[in-house]
């Protein structure tokens, strides 16, 4: 392998590389799903894997998501480490019984005797002009299911590092890939990509003092942009990237909010019953006397995901974030 120095790579490339490296290092890692073979997946994340590892390690399955996940459960029961691709967010729903009733519970059911180290990759979220059922932010369902880890990268580096960590985890991980960041680019050392030691640590992506934006995945770039724009209004916003919704790194978030005294949670998923509710509730519980204003949320509306021509109105954008920051009772 030729040494590739730090140069721009896309999140899609980093994800593909993570799969490749995991498969190369550990023969029990198997990639499976619809179109992951010759096609390399509809987003080309698995491109090249079947050539390098053969059809037995990178398998085009029949078109049946419950069957895919159910078969992966059996494979994991036998000691393999399946990495399952769900083609789009909404097409993971047929596998929910397997996910909730088995994947999330097998370890607990067997008092630890039968862990299921399965990684379920789910491209999620909107902003790509996808027609119905191709842009859901379905994280609320996963977050509400004990026994699952829920991980989502927002940067090229994390795409690699968190996916490696997820595959290495002995627990089932729902790995949510922000579709619209697949083609986002960043400088990245492909010669020595860094794994993340474990999942569950949030990162302060931008330090600030006025208020904290708490976010993850596809909304991180939007929040960073909002933070830049906020400078004009005289606000110095801190931005925390959760990186995993479960485990939820309360300590990092709470330290930030206690510092700034104000917080806004930003995500694409519907607001009502969405992950932001948990974050807001918990942050409030632990920062009550530090808060100058209630924790607010900027989220997708409480509607089914809109058609492409209307999605811009639905997605949390810079303006809506700034409008919300403005509502943080600055006059107090």
């Amino acid at each position, binding site marked *: 392998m030729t040494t590739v120095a730090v140069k721009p790579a896309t999140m899609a490339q980093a994800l593909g590389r993570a799969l490749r490296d995991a498969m190369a290092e550990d023969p029990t890692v198997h990639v499976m799903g*619809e*179109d992951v*073979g*010759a*096609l*390399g997946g*509809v987003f080309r994340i698995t491109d090249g894997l079947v050539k390098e590892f053969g059809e037995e390690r990178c398998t*085009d*399955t*029949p*078109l*049946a*998501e*419950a*069957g895919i996940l159910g078969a992966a459960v059996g494979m994991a029961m036998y000691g393999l480490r399946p990495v399952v691709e769900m083609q789009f967010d*909404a*097409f993971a*729903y*047929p596998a929910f019984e397997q996910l909730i009733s088995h994947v999330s519970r097998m370890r607990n059911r067997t008092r630890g005797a039968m862990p299921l180290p399965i990684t379920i990759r789910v491209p999620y979220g909107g902003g790509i*002009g*996808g*027609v*119905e*059922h*191709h842009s859901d932010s379905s994280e609320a369902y996963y977050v509400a299911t004990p026994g699952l880890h829920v991980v989502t990268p927002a940067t090229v580096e994390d795409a690699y590092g968190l996916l490696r960590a997820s595959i290495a985890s002995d627990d089932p991980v729902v790995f949510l890939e922000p579709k619209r960041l697949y083609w986002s680019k960043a400088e990245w050392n492909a010669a020595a990509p860094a794994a993340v030691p474990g999942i569950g640590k949030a990162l302060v992506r931008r330090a600030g003092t006025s208020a904290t934006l708490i976010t993850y995945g596809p909304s991180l770039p939007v929040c960073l942009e909002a933070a830049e724009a906020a400078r004009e209004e005289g606000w110095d916003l801190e931005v925390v990237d959760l990186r995993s919704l479960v485990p939820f790194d309360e300590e990092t978030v709470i330290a930030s909010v206690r510092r700034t005294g104000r917080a806004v949670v930003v995500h694409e998923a519907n607001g*009502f019953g969405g992950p932001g509710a948990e974050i807001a509730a918990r942050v409030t519980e632990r920062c009550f006397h530090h808060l100058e204003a209630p924790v607010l949320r900027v989220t997708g*509306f*409480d*509607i*089914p995901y*809109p*058609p*492409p*021509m*209307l999605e811009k*109105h*639905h997605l949390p954008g810079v*303006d*809506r974030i700034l*409008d919300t920051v403005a509502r943080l009772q600055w006059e107090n």
Partner: protein
Amino acid sequence: MTVQELPGAGASYRPTPPPSWRPRTQAAPLLPDPEPHRVLGTPAAEKLDPELMRRCYAELVRGRRYNAQATALTRQGRLAVYPSTVGQEACEVAAALVLAEQDWLFPSYRDTLAAVARGLDPVQALTLLRGDWHTGYDPREHRIAPLSTPLATQLPHAVGLAHAARLRGDDVVALAMVGDGGTSEGDFHEALNFAAVWQAPVVFLVQNNGFAISVPLAKQTAAPTLAHKAVGYGMPGRLVDGNDVAAVHEVLAEAVQRARTGGGPTLVEAITYRIDAHTNADDATRYREDDEVAAWKEHDPVELLERELTARGILDEAGIEAAKESAETMAAALRERMNADPVLDPMDLFAHVYSEQTGRLREQAAMLRAELDAEAEA
């Protein structure tokens, strides 16, 4: 009790079925045709109905043109995505023409052509794929269910609707379309089972076009044919050449008739081929050989019919020209109408989630309204 006391020990035990066992039907249902059923190019073509065939021909030509136009619109950014049915027009057209006015069509995401051949305005059929609202028509007005993107999920809907219609005493048949890949989904299984148990007036049309995106049939099933799946539900299964519009129409018409007259559901597998890529966004060279595509082009549904009809004198040069012209007119109108930007009202986002807006939705609608007003002022 010892074994000596048991009545009729040993040899006297009769090898008959256990008490309440009986096969559910006297015999296995008809096994599907060993070869795909054909009409065109066979002696059976003698009995073709010229009127119907001319209609089929006109629709095939129109369908081919529709496909070309829709694909062109993707290149012009006028459609977000288009799953073409080039090569599959015979199935699409036959499915549409075989239904009576009061019947229902349940298309998959690929089957806009079937909807158009049924009489739906092409612009309405393409509304979803344009990036406009999810459904461009009133399903009840046209008796065409919304295009179903989640594969096979429309099949239980078709069963439920057909069942409901029968319960109400209405003469309604539902025809549901699904791909070869879709037959692997649990919903396919559950729908066919419900249909058979309820003897619902449904026809299931599987277009086996050889691929589910990149996945070839051999990785999808080990069954002799997909039509063989009918056996396990106790319904008839039929296998038909999906590029032979006369054969598809005939097989579907029989199935529709069976359903209409209380004979229950039928599974039809039509062997066809997707000439274009999965959608405009797909790269089919990654998973199949040009040779295969070329061979199938020799078995083109439009040409097969044109050849037969001209050979039989059912169609002449003028008829061909007329069909082409009508197709061009449709295409030109479609092109023109699709070139105008549709006007969507963002407030529609909140209008139809519930029959009555919840407080939370009213609040969100007000927020968007304010943002839009502010934008308009700026």
